[in-house]
């Protein structure tokens, strides 16, 4: 098509050349120059090249983030696995009663502070909301205690009045039991509860994180369940060794249980966060790689097209001059 336009232009030049060669040559030069200035004759690869550069940078960044998440996961995974024995004695003694019917539920949602970690925070919030709905009814109330920025952002939108306490920046210093026990103490002092339901993501493997809920009952409810029989029925068979009364020992037991279970759940959630971030960043770098391949093909096509255009112009110009 460009060749035809060039030929037409040459035809016009020869038609005009007959009466006044010099002036027509000058005037015929002007239209072709005008054409060169008005239209973009050579196709530019700059746009595609810019896109390729930015996509490559994104790929490098996400690969680096994946490596960082992998190393953090290694560090925290051993600690989480070592802490798994901590809640088992309590569950062996007091059982696991997620279906307990109580008046005051407190849902402790454990989430991460930073984003780009896949869907774990959304699943934790979904399960928390579902537990809230499950435990709603006449004379029953549920409150939230939120650990972590991401769950706070999601829950504050529709459940602002139900949030009792929220804590962020848990992982500023490496997680340890002292910090978590202070946190547990804070929660126990400020929040009235009959049952605490901790919602977190349990770390099974690098690609699998299961939302889990652990239930800690207050001493009064433990006594009530023990009296009514069922799972906790044989709690009365246990002798209490302690200078204090049974109620006080049960109180200390409940508090200790809460801090232990919370410690394990915070560690497991941190592991899940790093694992989820690894897989999110991995799929992101893979996507960037695919995009880069497609852009490279486009780039080559564009480059070849512009070379072909130039060649056609040169050749048609040359053939017009000869013939």
């Amino acid at each position, binding site marked *: 098509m460009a060749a035809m336009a060039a030929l037409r232009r040459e035809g016009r030049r020869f038609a005009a050349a007959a009466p006044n060669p010099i002036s027509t040559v000058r005037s015929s030069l002007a239209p072709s120059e005008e054409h060169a200035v008005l239209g973009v004759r050579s196709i530019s690869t700059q746009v595609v090249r810019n896109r390729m550069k930015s996509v490559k940078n994104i790929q490098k960044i996400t690969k680096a983030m994946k490596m960082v998440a992998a190393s953090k996961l290694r560090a925290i995974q051993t*600690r989480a696995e*070592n*802490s*798994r*024995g*901590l*809640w*088992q*004695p*309590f*569950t*062996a*003694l007091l*059982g*696991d*009663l*997620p*279906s307990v019917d109580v008046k005051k539920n407190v849902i402790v949602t454990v989430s991460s502070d930073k984003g780009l970690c896949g869907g774990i925070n959304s699943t934790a919030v*979904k*399960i928390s909301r*579902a537990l809230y*709905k*499950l435990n709603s009814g006449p004379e029953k109330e549920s409150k939230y205690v939120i650990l972590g920025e991401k769950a706070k952002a999601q829950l504050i939108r529709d459940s602002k009045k139900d949030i009792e306490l929220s804590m962020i920046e848990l992982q500023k210093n490496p997680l340890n*039991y002292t910090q978590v026990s202070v946190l547990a103490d804070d929660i126990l002092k400020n929040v009235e509860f009959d049952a605490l339901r901790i*919602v977190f993501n*349990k770390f099974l493997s690098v690609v699998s994180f*299961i*939302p*889990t*809920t*652990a*239930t800690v009952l207050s001493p009064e409810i433990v006594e009530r369940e023990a009296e009514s029989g*069922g*799972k906790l029925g*044989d709690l009365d*068979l*246990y*002798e*209490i*060794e*302690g*200078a*204090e009364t049974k109620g006080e*020992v049960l109180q*200390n*037991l409940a508090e*200790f249980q809460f801090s*232990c*279970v919370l*410690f394990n759940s915070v560690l497991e959630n941190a592991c899940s966060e790093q694992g989820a971030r690894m897989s999110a960043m991995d799929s992101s770098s893979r996507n960037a790689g695919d995009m880069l391949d497609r852009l490279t093909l486009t780039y080559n096509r564009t480059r070849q097209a512009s070379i072909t255009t130039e060649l056609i112009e040169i050749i048609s110009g040359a053939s017009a001059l000869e013939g």
Partner: protein
Amino acid sequence: MFRHAPRLLSRASSSAMRWRRPFSTDLPAETPVDSKFVQTWRSTIPNIEPPKTPSAFMAPRPPTPPTIPSKLTINVVLPYNSIFSAKEVDMVIVPATTGQMGVLPGHVATIAELKPGVLSVHEGNDVTKYFVSGGFAFVHANSVADIVAVEAVPVDQFDQSLVQKGLAEFTQKLSSASTDVEKAEAQIGIDVHSAINAALTG
């Protein structure tokens, strides 16, 4: 085309029969209470899978045997580590708030609160002593004892002089304490340090 149909059908059905659940232990152990939770969940919230509960991740405990077993199984767990998990020993002596309590196989089921003191584990002729900072000890009817402590350190890793220094420091803090909280903290420090001292000397 239809000549191959029977062969393909037989192959498909045999492969379906060949896929069996690999291990029977993979079946989730759902206790009656869990299934109640799962049922109420499924009826009110049909779209979301119910979350798992801790009992799904725990091996079930052995039932109470009819005769007293010969060995005691102990689990000593700390936040950072499990020192013993399902270890069979002859006796443990735990520092309960009422004093040193010896636990033998067949001990009555007990919940004991621990004060800072020495935990000694007797296995045959070996005695290993640990200083525990505090926690709880559960003895179950099936001769399984769980000891949950915040810190447990072998006694030989303590430096006597540092312990004396700490004791002096906390005694001084108690005398200069003004608020109840400070007094309580100083008292706790004194208790722990004097217990370590007693453990090292006694």
